[in-house]
């Protein structure tokens, strides 16, 4: 098709198409009336657009490719260096909210290398304990009951690992030292500004409170890394990764996901079995459910963490369930006669 067009025409069309590509990207939109009009003007425009789109999309899809990650690191480091003395630190902090200046560790190998360098600092909580940790760069970790997080800071990376339980991360922005959290075994690298990660249940749950987040699934040993795709999240979304199943992204009320910081469990239309699991997370006295029909009953409410009796009261009040306290203090929930 393009052979009907002269060389200068093609060059001109390619330049226009490139300018459209850059402007649409800047406006965070994929089209406009003026662009559609330009595109429909001639086949040469459509050819030029396709030529521009192919490498543009390709690079986006392969953002975690090892070589591209190296280029991204280099670009971020040089931008950081160029800005020194001219751009004030608060500027960086403002930018944290505006853009996801994050760099993702594409391959597990790179993270493994950093972990091998020094011993990480490990913070842990007992059952029923909550703890807040301020890190050297001003970032904060709130650690829920029965949780453990390992932290390792190097000159060019902040690497964390949530080993069990649940934690909220509030990240101080530093473009030269990306902040990432590994959680859920080999599965996930997360990077962002304010987010909650929960590995206490069967599903890995990541809730984004503020800023942006990229989830980079760690390829399994038998997987080619370029075949694993990043997932981007925006504030108010939650990623749910069930064991060995495809993940789901949904919109949530973020306050509910971090209700534990106020010492509460907040649930809406959840099966009793799952709610009991969360209540048990905070208490040595356990809720025991053996009847699957009881475990699948749905309920909504807010309970204080560690208050097993309050929870048993609530349940037996609203559901056809009987609560019985055993001699060891555990509470057995069974169907009411």
């Amino acid at each position, binding site marked *: 098709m393009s052979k009907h067009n002269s060389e200068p025409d093609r060059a001109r069309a390619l330049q226009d198409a490139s300018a459209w590509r*850059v402007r649409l990207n800047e406006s965070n939109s994929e089209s406009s009336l003026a662009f559609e009009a330009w595109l429909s003007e001639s086949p040469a425009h459509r050819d030029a657009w396709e030529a521009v789109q192919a490498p543009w999309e390709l690079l986006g899809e392969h953002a975690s490719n090892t070589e591209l990650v190296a280029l991204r690191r280099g670009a971020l480091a040089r931008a950081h260096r160029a800005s020194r003395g001219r751009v004030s630190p608060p500027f960086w902090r403002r930018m944290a909210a505006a853009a996801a200046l994050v760099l993702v560790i594409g391959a597990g190998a790179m993270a493994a290398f950093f972990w091998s360098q020094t011993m990480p600092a490990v913070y842990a909580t007992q059952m029923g304990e909550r703890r807040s940790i301020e890190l050297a760069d001003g970032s904060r970790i709130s650690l829920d009951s029965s949780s453990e997080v390992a932290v390792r800071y190097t000159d060019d990376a902040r690497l964390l690992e949530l080993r069990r339980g649940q934690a909220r991360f509030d990240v101080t922005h530093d473009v030269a030292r990306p902040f990432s959290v590994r959680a859920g075994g080999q599965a996930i690298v997360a990077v962002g500004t304010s987010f909650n990660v929960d590995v206490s249940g069967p599903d890995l749950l990541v809730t984004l409170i503020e800023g942006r987040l990229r989830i980079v699934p760690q390829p399994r040993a038998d997987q080619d890394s370029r075949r694993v795709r990043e997932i981007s999240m925006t504030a108010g979304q939650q990623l749910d990764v069930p064991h060995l199943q495809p993940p789901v992204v949904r919109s949530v009320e973020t306050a509910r996901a971090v209700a534990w910081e106020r010492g509460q469990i907040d649930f809406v239309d959840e099966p009793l079995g799952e709610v009991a699991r969360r209540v048990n997370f905070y208490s040595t006295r356990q809720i025991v459910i053996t009847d699957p029909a009881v475990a699948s009953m749905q309920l909504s409410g807010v309970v204080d963490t560690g208050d097993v009796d309050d929870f048993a009261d609530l349940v037996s009040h609203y559901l056809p369930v009987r609560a019985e306290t055993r001699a060891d203090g555990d509470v057995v929930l069974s169907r009411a006669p």
Partner: protein
Amino acid sequence: MSAEPKPSLETLSAALNARFRGPLMAFFLRKVRHREDAEDLTQETFARLLASPQAADLNSAEAFVFKVATNLLRDRARRQSVRGWQVPVPEEGNPEETSEGLVEDRAPERVLLGREELALALRALNELGERTRDIFILARLENMKQKEIAALFGLSVSTVEKHLIRATQHLAKRFGESE
């Protein structure tokens, strides 16, 4: 419950259709495989527009309509990328093996691009001057705005835009030559 007079939904809907249907269909048809999907997405765009206050004013709708359309596509792509997670991508040149969740990914606009193409893109990137390449990478892969990049490097926004256009054009040119 305000009693304010509103233009009827039919009138608005007809006006939106007359003005945006063609461009929207053209837009979606480049992104999805099936005409019915493009139809659905166009209708969904109108439905969202009509549900928003911007719909009453066609001029503000113009700024809004492709944002809505873009977001619809992104939601859809996200759902599919999530669904496609850990699903092995079929080998190049073996389209029969394509799994359900990935079919949509290969929209007409996106050629099936593999390892060789990525190598080509990386080579083209490396041919660029360091500054041009860095600016392109920050805008394309780190989601930085031109204003932010300009502030970092102490450049004007229009200079940053020129770097970006030059990089984009160079990549497209190298890609075109290989075909």
